[in-house]
């Protein structure tokens, strides 16, 4: 019982940590890492809550959703990395600052 809530809170901590890093860091690769950490936090909350009922097998629907989510996360990461390399090729730096947008 206790470990379910432990993992939910860890999941929310990961989400908040990732959100902080997305806002604070300028480098795009760091932002991509941070979004992945946020995603892991969400998955952790979902799967932990799926195991909340005692004595029964965990709910398989959130498990399936999280597997879907992991695959979508890896494809989003791949696209984001390709876009980052493109930004780097165009502007010479891998971050979004005010002057690089002009």
């Amino acid at each position, binding site marked *: 019982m206790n470990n379910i809530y*432990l993992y939910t809170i860890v999941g929310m901590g990961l989400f*908040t940590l990732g959100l902080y890093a997305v806002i604070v860091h300028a480098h795009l690769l760091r932002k*991509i890492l941070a979004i992945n950490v946020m995603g892991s936090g969400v998955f952790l909350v979902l799967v*932990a809550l799926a*195991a909340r009922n005692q004595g029964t097998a*965990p709910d398989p629907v959130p498990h399936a959703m999280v597997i*879907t989510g992991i695959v979508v996360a*890896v494809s989003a990461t791949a696209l984001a*990395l390709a876009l980052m390399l493109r930004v780097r090729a165009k502007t010479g730096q891998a971050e979004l600052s005010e002057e690089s947008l002009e």
Partner: protein
Amino acid sequence: MTLLQLMFDTLLGFSLLWLAWQALTSPDLFRAIVLFIAFGLLMALTWIRLDAPDVAMAEASIGAGLTGALLLSALARLGSKNGSRAILEKKHQAGSMTENTKNQLPFRLLLMVLLLAVAAGLVYVVLTLPENIPGLGILVEENLESSGVSNPVTAVLLNYRGYDTLLELSVLLLTLLGVWSLGDMTKQHESFPGPVLSTLSRLLVPLLIMAAGYLLWVGAHAPGGAFQAGSLLGAAGVLLLLAGWRPGTRLAGLPLRISLVLGVAAFVAAGMVFILLGRQFLEYPPSFAGVLILLIEAAATLSIGITLAALFLGGRPKFSQPKFSRPKLNQPKSSQPKFRRHK
């Protein structure tokens, strides 16, 4: 015993938070990525603790393995563009930092307050959730007979929530189209893999393909399935690419494209056939749902594996126009495209 388990869970939870913090703050990007991979492996351990072996396998192979490979190869390309390795981002950051040092401290304080409010709201919502809600687990269990498989996660993925999986395969395909639209495969200076890496790939690639087939088959009644199997195929592809193999120009044309859309195509075809037979889209008759799921999963595995390997390759591989020489389609299709050494 339960105290020991609680201690282990606490330790695991704190390690997760600590690794995530380190990965997001360490100034060296290479170090940050390695820490992120370690974070993914600990996540896989967490899924096991939460009784979700299917998710653990997907996380270990996709979340930690393939994402890590993608991040590292992107970092290498980021560094190789202007000669020096632009790994230390301190120098980069120095410029943008000085601009807003004036409002740096108040900004960070405001951010902290807002984020703490977000976190407190989340904790409040989760802790006030009603306890002992049966959820959909009972419903899944009751209908498992007619789903064609006995692993509930596979039943949800391929039968009850087939729409989700179909759309997910489409997302994967769209991503690849997005990456390809950003440019062709870059001509990177080849580093010779050396005897160890090429022997390793020769030993492991057949084993990985066999393991993918095994996971696909076993997914019907035990943890496993199309996504885990597909990610193993993807790993085999990444290993081949690392060992210096590139798809030949003929294979990169039609055969590659057909195998990329095969998963979505099989899914849609299965759905459409049952509309014509007077059923709903993706509503399988229970009598041969098992066979149908296995067929769709086999097509999806192939597509997922090849898409993931193609994402690792980066841009669109060069292919010969099928104007003069049509690729022979009557050959027996192998389950993995042949790769030819790129000279």
